[in-house]
């Protein structure tokens, strides 16, 4: 499964989101009212989810803030790690 799709599947299942994969755009902001509306508790979970499923560990909060912006930014960070 492509990384972006896998991320969406994981986000929906791990965060118990009542939505379908195609409702999450690759560039849709994950946090805040303009996007999906995740909160800081979700952020903590996403960090653990990424580490558990992709072996990607956030270096610090600044990096987490950048990486967790959207599905695309997460995927790019994962691809950069794999390269």
């Amino acid at each position, binding site marked *: 499964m492509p990384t972006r799709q896998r991320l969406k599947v994981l986000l929906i299942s791990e965060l*118990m989101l009542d939505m379908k994969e195609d409702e999450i755009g690759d560039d849709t902001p994950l946090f805040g009212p303009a996007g999906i509306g995740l909160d800081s*508790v*979700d952020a*903590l*979970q996403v960090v653990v989810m990424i580490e558990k499923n992709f072996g990607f560990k956030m270096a610090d909060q600044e990096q987490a803030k950048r990486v967790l912006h959207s599905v695309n930014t997460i995927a790019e960070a994962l691809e950069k790690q794999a390269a």
Partner: protein
Amino acid sequence: MSRSILITGANGALGLAIAEYFLTKEADCRVFLGVRERRDRAEELAARFADRAELITLEITSPEAWKTALAEIAGKGTPLGVLINNAGFHEDALLANMSADQWSRVLDANLNAVFHGCQAVLQGMMRERQGRIINISSLSAISSPAGQTNYAAAKAGVIGLTQSLSKEAARMGITVNAVCPGYIEGGLPADWTPEHLKALKMQLPMRRFAKPAEVAAAVFFLASAEASYITGSTLKIDGGLL
């Protein structure tokens, strides 16, 4: 699936009763008895359940000690499913006479230690997407008796921590609850005279103290699958005193 249970203050009457309750009622669990210097009674219990219970040295006020203890538990192969923050003590004095050290010691052992314990286990439970944290508060958190400003504040803090953390952890399959026991047999100050105890019982609606197993049963329930939708709750177990 089998799980490990970590109980702090496991050499005391309530800690022992909780440990024994789990060992008796949950056949495949492993119980880690968190102790410090005093460990004679915990050793006795561990000897009775040698294949499933063992002592673990844990200075609850030290984050490093928590890390070490959890690494030791992880090394045994059964994931930690339940943390019971039971250890604590009181050092009573009227506030006018209370030293800053008395205040700090009680806050450290009864509140800060709960913070360290919860923080230490949280990431592992998040990874497993399940976990149960049960914090033993006290009736003093609610009744706030004179002479216990430090203890009452610490135990009320435990309730606040429990409620707040329960909201942070709910979506991760982790429940966090508090229990407020009243007077427990075997858990009362050794210097209380028989007359004092008799007079105290007369004030209790049930005219008796709780048996440690009666509190342990509630803790066990909160750690069970049946309690999966209970989180952020404070359960008072006081025989109707308050």
